[in-house]
């Protein structure tokens, strides 16, 4: 990963309470897994920043090293890597994701 990519990832992850690195945008996800991740965050009614990795090869490769996680999407809450879309779904269904956001002081609509 380039120093530039690391610096930009750091600043995004630490500058936003909730960040989703995804393929495409929340309105136009370019992959089923990213689409599912967006749907979960929308259901929780949480404000989040999103990064379209398809627009930036440096971040697309860099984020996988950054988290030691080989796939996208990736969710970060308060600077911590939470997981990919399967983990998000499991945590959403069990109520853990809503709880995590609440514990971290992130406002949700539900």
């Amino acid at each position, binding site marked *: 990963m380039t120093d530039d990519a690391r610096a930009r990832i750091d600043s995004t992850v630490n500058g936003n309470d909730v960040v989703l690195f995804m393929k495409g945008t929340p309105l136009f996800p370019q992959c*089923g*897994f990213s689409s599912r991740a967006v749907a979960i965050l929308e259901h929780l009614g949480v404000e989040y920043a999103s990064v379209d990795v398809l627009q930036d090869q440096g971040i697309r490769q860099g984020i*996988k090293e950054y988290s*030691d*996680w*080989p*796939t*996208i999407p990736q969710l970060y809450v308060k600077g911590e*890597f*939470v*997981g*990919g879309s*399967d*983990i998000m779904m*499991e*945590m959403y269904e069990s109520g853990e994701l809503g709880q995590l956001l609440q514990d971290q002081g992130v406002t949700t609509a539900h």
Partner: protein
Amino acid sequence: MPMAAEEIETMIRAAIPDAHVEITDLAGDGDHYAARVVSESFRGLSRVQQQRRIYDALGGRMGGVLHALQLTTACPQ
């Protein structure tokens, strides 16, 4: 070249011998799979750590030749 379901299962079981592995070919196209892996060795690990063990077992194929794998991990009840 996509991976066959048997190949995915074999690689997971090679790395986690006690694993119970169920693979579902979601689209019937040999390219979109769901895997459920149950292993006692996951006990005490976070979900991220459990899934990392599967990704390690697949030796870097995840996110490469293996694009679409829905993954669920669990400990035996």
